[in-house]
C-alpha cells in the first residue's frame, strides 16, 4: 500500500499512532454480541459453532451477513449492528480483499461505539496489521489456521472451539 499523503501529528505524540479501540463491557454475560459473517464461503460453519459456544457462556447473539466479502458492509448493516449490539465479532477473513474490507468494517463499528474483534486466517496477519496501520486504528484480531476453504465442517468447528476463549479475551 503506497502512502501518497503524509500528514503531521497534531497531538503531543504521547499515544501510539493508532487509535485505541473501544473497550468492551467487562462482562459479556447477558450482553448482545453481533456475529457479522463477511460472506466468505465456509465462514458460516465456523460462526455457527462460535455462536453456540457463546450462548453456552451466557452471551446473547445476533447474526448479520454481508452480501459480499469484497466490499465494506452496507451502511444499514453497520447501523443495525450499532443499534442492536454491545460488541461485534467479524469472521472469517482468509483473503486480501476480505481482510481489507472487514478491517474497515471493524473500524467503522468502533467509531460507532461498538468494540469488536476480527477473526482471520494466519496468512493474513500482516495484511490486517497493514490495513490497521493505514487507517490508524489498533484493531483486535484472532487468527485461525490457514487455509480454511478445504476443511471439513468438523475441522472448522474445532477452530471455533480452539479460538472462542481468545475471541472473548480480545474483545475485553
Amino acid at each position, binding site marked *: *500500500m*503506497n*502512502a*501518497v*499523503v*503524509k*500528514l*503531521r*501529528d*497534531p*497531538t*503531543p*505524540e*504521547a499515544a501510539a*499512532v493508532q*487509535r485505541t479501540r473501544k473497550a468492551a463491557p467487562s462482562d459479556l454475560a447477558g450482553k448482545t454480541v453481533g456475529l457479522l459473517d463477511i460472506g466468505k464461503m465456509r465462514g458460516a460453519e465456523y460462526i455457527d459453532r462460535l455462536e453456540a459456544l457463546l450462548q453456552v457462556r451466557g452471551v446473547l447473539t445476533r447474526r448479520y451477513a454481508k452480501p459480499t466479502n469484497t466490499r465494506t458492509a452496507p451502511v444499514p448493516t453497520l447501523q443495525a449492528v450499532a443499534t442492536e449490539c454491545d460488541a461485534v465479532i467479524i469472521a472469517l477473513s482468509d483473503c486480501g480483499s476480505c481482510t481489507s474490507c472487514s478491517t474497515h468494517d471493524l*473500524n467503522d463499528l468502533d*467509531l460507532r461505539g461498538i468494540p469488536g474483534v476480527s477473526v482471520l486466517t494466519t496468512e493474513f496477519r500482516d495484511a490486517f496489521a497493514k490495513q490497521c*496501520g*493505514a*487507517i*490508524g*486504528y489498533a484493531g483486535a484480531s484472532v487468527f485461525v489456521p490457514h487455509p480454511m476453504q478445504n476443511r471439513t465442517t468438523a475441522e472448522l468447528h474445532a477452530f471455533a472451539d480452539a479460538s472462542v476463549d481468545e475471541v472473548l479475551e480480545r474483545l475485553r
Partner: protein
Amino acid sequence: MEAVPDFRRHCPMSRANGILAFVKRECETCALVHPLLARLRAAGVPIRGVVQDDPGHFADLAPLDDTALEESFRHDIETVPTLVRIEGGIETGRVVGWQRDEWRDLLGDASIGEGMPAWQPGCGSKSREPGVHERLVVRYGDAGLASREIEVGEWDDPMEACFERGWTDGLPVVPPTDERILRMLAGTRRLPHEVVGRVPPNLAACTVEKVAINAVMAGCKPEYMPVVLAALETALDPIFTMHGLLCTTCFSGPVIVVNGPIAKRIGMNWGINALGQGNRANATIGRALQLIVRNVGGGVPGELDRATLGGPGKYTFCFAEDETDPTWEPLSVARGIAPGRSAVTLFQGDGIQGFIDQRSRTPEEITRSFAMSLAAVGHPKLCQFTNAMLVLSAEHYAIYRNAGWDRARITKELHAALLRPGTELVQGAQGVGEGIDPKRAGEAVPKFWEEGLLIVRAGGQAGLFSAILAGWTGGRFRHESQPVTREIVE
C-alpha cells in the same frame, strides 16, 4: 559567515564548471540580457541557461529545463536573471539582476554590456512565487518539522483519516501537510520548536509547530498565527483556569475578543453577525484554540471534557470589538493595554442570551432594562457566582453616547442597578430552593463582582438588540478564576 553551498550532491544537472544563468521568458530583464548571454556562449564562454518557464525560448543558451524549479530551489534563486559561477562543484560567485560592472567582474571581461544600461533590476524567481517555495521545500528540501509523520494510504481520503484518528471537533479539518504547516509557520517569527506552554488537561507541552499544525487544521491563514499564539498563551495563564474550564460539567468555553489594529488587518468581523458564522478569521482562530486543547491537551468531550450539555461556542467563539466610534474605550484599553496596541481578551463564557429592548429612550431606562436581563445570568437568585460579558450593539450604545455616558459610567450604573435586596435572593425565597446564603438576607447584594462585568461593543448598525454571555461558574472564586487580557506580539 555562511557556509558555501555545495551542490555536488544535489544538483547533478548543474554541477559542471561554468556559469549558470537563471532566467524566465516573461522577465524583461532576462529579455534584455538574453542576446548578450547568447553572444558570450557563442564566443565560447561556458554559459548555460537554467530556464524556469520556456526552455525552447532560450535554445541558444543550451538550456537546462528547470520548469520543476528544483535547480532554482537548490541554488536559492530569488530573482531572475541571476548568474551563478560554479567551480569544482561549488558556487564561487553570483550576480543578481543586470548590473554591468558586477557582470564584468564575474565574467572577467571588462568590455561586455557596452551600450546597455548600467543597471536594471530583475524579476521575481518563479521558485519564490506565493506558496511555491514551501512546496519546493517539501519536495526537494528538509521541512525541518519535528512532529511525527502519519502516512495515509493510497486509497484513503486524508480528511477522513483525520476524523478516524480523532483529530477533529466533528467538522472536517484541513489535512495538515508539510506544505501547509510551513506556510502557517511563516506567519510567526517564533521558532517551530519553541514551547508555548503546557496544555490542559494532560498538561502536554505545546510547541509553535503543534500550534501551526492545529491552526492549519482549523482553517487559519498564516497571518492569524500571532492571534492564535496570543490566545493560547492567554488561555494557559493560570488565572484563566483553562484546565477547569475544559473539564467542567458547565456550558462554558473560551470566548476570544480581539482588539487593536490586527483585527482590521486580518479582516475580522465586529459588525453584522459578529458573534455568528461567516468570517474566516473569527471562525478559525477560535477553532484553532479549541483544536489545540483537544489534540495537544487531550480535552476530548466525553473523556475529560465532561460538559453536561456543552454549547455551540465550544466549536469556536471569537470576534473583534468595534473600535470605530472614538467615544468608546476599547475593552483592551479598559483592561490595561496601551491604546493602539493589539490584544486578546479571553472570557470563560457560555453561548449568547439575546437582549431585546426597542422602547427605552434614556440611559437610565436602558440601564434598568439591561439589569433585568443580566440578573438572570446563571440563575436570577445567584449572585457573585459567575462573571458576564455584555455585547453592546450600536443602537443601544447610541442611547448612552447621546447622553454622554462612557464605559466607566455605564459599568458603574449597571452595577448599581443590579443591587437587589438579599431577602428576595436567599435560598428558599420566592418558593425556589436555589439562591444565596441566607446570612446575606439583610444585604443589598450585587449581581457581579466589581470587575466581573465586561462590556464589549460589536454588531451591525441596525437593531436594538444586544447580547449577554453568561460566565462560567468558576467565576464565583473571585481570585482564582478571571478573564485575562494580553497584548498580541507580532
